[in-house]
Structures are given as C-alpha cells and as structure tokens.
C-alpha cells in the first residue's frame, strides 16, 4: 500500500536509525546519516552498550522534585547536601547548565532549573515554567542568581523573575557573561563563566 511507504515500521533499519537520530537537537539529515553509517561499523558490543545507556538514562534518572535537576535519588545530591549554602539559589534554564557552573566552583548554593524560558511565541508563560515553585523556595534565601542565557528569551525570563523576587527584599543578580551575544552557557569555558559569577551584577 502506497500510504505505508513512510511509516516507521516499513522503513529499512538504516533509514529508521537515520530518522530517529535526525530528531535529536542540532542533528540535521546529513549528520544523522553520517552517525548512522558510523554506528553500522561499530562492534555489536559497542552498539549494545550505547543502546543500554540510553535505556538506562530513561529508567534510572528523573527530575528532582525540589529543583528540577536530573538525579537518581529524591531529592537530588545538590538539594540534600548539608554543606551547600541554602541562602543562595542559582536559576538556570536546563539541567545541563549546572555542570558548567559547578566546574567554576564559584557557586556553593542551591539550584533551580526552569526547564525552559518565557516565550510568548511558543506559548510558554510563568505557569508553564513553574515559577510558583521557585517562589515557594525563597524562604530563608538572601540571593537569587539568574543564570539564564543572554539571548532575548533568557533575558526576558531573568527580567521577569527579578521583578517578582526583588519586592521580597531578596538580592537578585544576573550573571554578567563575558561571552559573545547569543552564546550559550553550555559552550562557555570555565574561566569566563567563573569570572562572570564573581562579577555578577545586581539587577
């Protein structure tokens, strides 16, 4: 039947793999094809290890119910660490932003992961970001560091949070990125990021 030609079940295994890979962020058709052909050549053991790792991530990891970071226990290691400074919360967009900030060793406080940014274009408002949950965590906190990306949406999110948090008498600062505009926390080296944490500006 003609209409079945493109359904996943009727694709040959290689096309299926290309299709799945190309759905990953930042991977176009061409890169997907290259990766698929690479995977074709690896040993069966290596292929199983990769597949297993993907499944394991889904089975054993979840979001921390306090801060939204990725964890294998509830609450996560940051939230349950008694050594961390509970008066400071650093707000980031995605869980993968945390390791970059950790490596700088400039922030010893807690985290809050928004899992996105405000974006009227994509219908994401304060409710979708769970801003209320962040607000509920502010008792006993004396500084919130807004480390969203320096693009338009990250900036909008930071400004928005600052307007909600400041009236509570809590210090709000913005990471002063010494990086190219449109840059991403993920790609910023530790030195730059460390310097910006140290030199964060009050909002």
């Amino acid at each position: 039947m003609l209409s079945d030609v493109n359904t996943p079940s009727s694709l040959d295994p290689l096309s299926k793999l290309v299709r799945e890979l190309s759905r990953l962020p930042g991977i176009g058709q061409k890169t997907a094809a290259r990766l698929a052909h690479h995977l074709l050549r690896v040993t069966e053991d290596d292929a199983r290890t990769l597949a297993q790792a993907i499944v394991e991530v889904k089975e054993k990891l979840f979001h921390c119910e306090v801060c939204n970071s990725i964890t294998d226990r509830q609450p996560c290691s940051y939230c349950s660490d008694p050594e961390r400074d509970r008066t400071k919360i650093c707000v980031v967009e995605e869980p993968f932003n945390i390791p970059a900030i950790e490596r700088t060793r400039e922030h010893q406080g807690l985290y809050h992961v928004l899992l996105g940014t405000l974006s009227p274009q994509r219908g994401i408002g304060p409710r979708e970001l769970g801003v209320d949950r962040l607000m509920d965590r502010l008792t006993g906190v004396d500084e919130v560091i807004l480390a969203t990306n320096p693009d338009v949406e990250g900036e909008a999110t930071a400004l928005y949070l600052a307007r909600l948090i400041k009236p509570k008498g809590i210090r709000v600062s913005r990471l002063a990125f010494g990086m190219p505009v449109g840059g991403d926390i993920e790609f910023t080296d530790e030195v730059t990021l460390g310097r910006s944490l140290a030199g964060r500006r009050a909002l």
Partner: protein
Amino acid sequence: MLTHLSATAFRNLEALDVEVGPGRHLILGTNGAGKTSLLEAIYLLATTRSFRTPRIADCVRHGESSFRVLCETAERQKLEVFLDAGQRERRVNGERTSLADHLAALPVVCWTASEGEVLTGAPTERRRFMDRGVLGLRPVALEVMSRYRHALDGKKELLKSGWVDPVQLSVWTDLQARAAAELSALRATYVEQLSAGLAELLEAADLGLPEVKLKYRPSPSEAIDGVEAVRGALEQAQAKEIELKQPLLGPQRDDLSIRWVGREGESRAVKRVASAGERKALGLALLLAHGQVLQGRNVEPVVLLDDVDAELDPERWSRLWTLVGRHLQILVTSARPAVWEHLEIDHRWQVESGRVRRG
C-alpha cells in the same frame, strides 16, 4: 574586490570560470542573454541573497537540481554559495561562518530595476534601504536587528493573546525599548552620513536636480534620545496597544523622508514631483552616495549596476559615471552599446545566450 568568479548550473549561464580584474567592467548583451544573472551571482556570493527572488531554488539552471557559485576576493577570501538538498549553504574559506562575517568579506553596492522603489514605494522599502546601509557599514548590526525582531515578536504574541500579564508585558517592552534605541541610533547615524555624502555628490555631478533633504523619521519620534526616552514613549502607548492587541510604535514603523528643497526653502516629497528620469538619477545618486559613505569608512565595495542606463538621459548618466569612482571595481550591464561609446571603460564583456566572453 573580486578577483575570480565561477558558476555552475546557475540560471541560464553556461559553466563560468573567469578572472575579474580591478576597474570598470562593461557587460553588454541583449535582454535575457544572462547579464543580470552574472551580477546576481556576485550579489548572491556577497550577501547570500538574490536580488531577483526570495526563493533561492529559482536560481538553479533548468533541468539541474542544484547550483554552485564561487569567488575569490583580493584579500584571498574564498566565498561560496550553493544549494544542497534544496537548502542554501554558504561558506567562507570552506567554513560556515556567522552571517555577519560572510557579509563583511565582500561588501557590495547594487543597483537593480527595483531600486526606484526606495523613492516611490512603501516605507518598508526605505527601512530595507536604511538597514542595508547600516549593515554595509557595520555587519555586526545584524545582531541588533534580529534581537529587535525577536523582542517585537514576543510582545506581539503577548498582546494578541488578549489578557495581558502586566509584568510580562513590561519585560518585553523593556527588551523592545533597548533594542529599538540601538537600532534607531544606527539608522540615524547612517542617514546623517548618507545625507552628507549625497549633498557632496549632487554638487559635484551637477545633474540639474534641486537640493535634496534626507531626514530619518524614527518611531517613536523620541527614539534617538536613548533607551529611557523610547521606554517612556512605549509605556505611554501601552494602553492603546493592549486595546488594539498589537504593538503601535517602534523601528518597524520608521521611515526616511526624501524631499526636494525649492528656491524659497519650501520642500516637497520627491515622489510627488520628480519625473521618471529625475527619480532614476536621484536613486542612482543615493546609491553612489552610499558607496562613498562606505569608502569613507575604509570599506571598498564592489559596485554592481544592472541596466542602469535605461530611462536615464545620456547626459546625466555620463556625469554620474565619472563620479562612480575610478578607484572602485564596478560591473555594469547594458543593452545599449551606443551609450558607452564615449565613456571610460577598463574591461568589456559580451554575454550571449548564457555564454560570457571578453571583448
């Protein structure tokens, strides 16, 4: 400056691979021979856009699936634009760079048939004209423009949704104001420089045209007074914006007024009073003034002039030609060899049914 040009499966051009020297190039040929395609290829390499079509796939030669154009500049940069699986691809020295870096590699100034729209068309034509000028001077302004667009789109969506959270709206207004102030400052500076360049050029060319006054008309009108002023104006318009569910102010409403000044100092919109020939002369003068602004900033643009002598009386054209600048690389197409008999030309080309040859 361009030193080498090659094209494969581009429009009706036969496979092309030529050295391009400095100086003034006249490209002769009948209509439809492929003269414009030649300039289009250079423009595409310089800007990654076509001046003929927003659909890049239109540039593929009939019966082929993709095209490739390539050039080298005097600074030994290799630019490349091609179609791959229907997608536009661009390279500088084999690498996909930022668009700003690509634009900086080969600055161009280009006259095409649609250029007259700047004088007679809608304000959007003049905003495009100003932004092209701004980008010619400062390719990094691309970031400001896209930031403004982004902030405006965010605000548009918020307003459209009907019920508006005042905190969110003020955040997007704030972002809009900051980018607007930067964009307005860039446009204002450019118009100021262009205006001075134009006055100089008109005086030197002696085209028999009245004095021309260029004035940047920003929205809000306070836009060039800085962020605070813009924010204030935007906030004042907010109630109305909420009521009408759309942004009412901002650089998306800017215009450039182009007026003739009469003997008694009275001024009139050029588009209402000028003849077709006068408009063409003034349009060209504007373009050449833009070229001079670039030169003033040590940017040496390649000048592309497509079918520039049409509708222009030969006397005016020969005066303008002497001003185009003998130091620049110029490629000009024409279907009228007679017009060029007494004008200074360094290189001649013939285009016939897509074949490009010297002579």
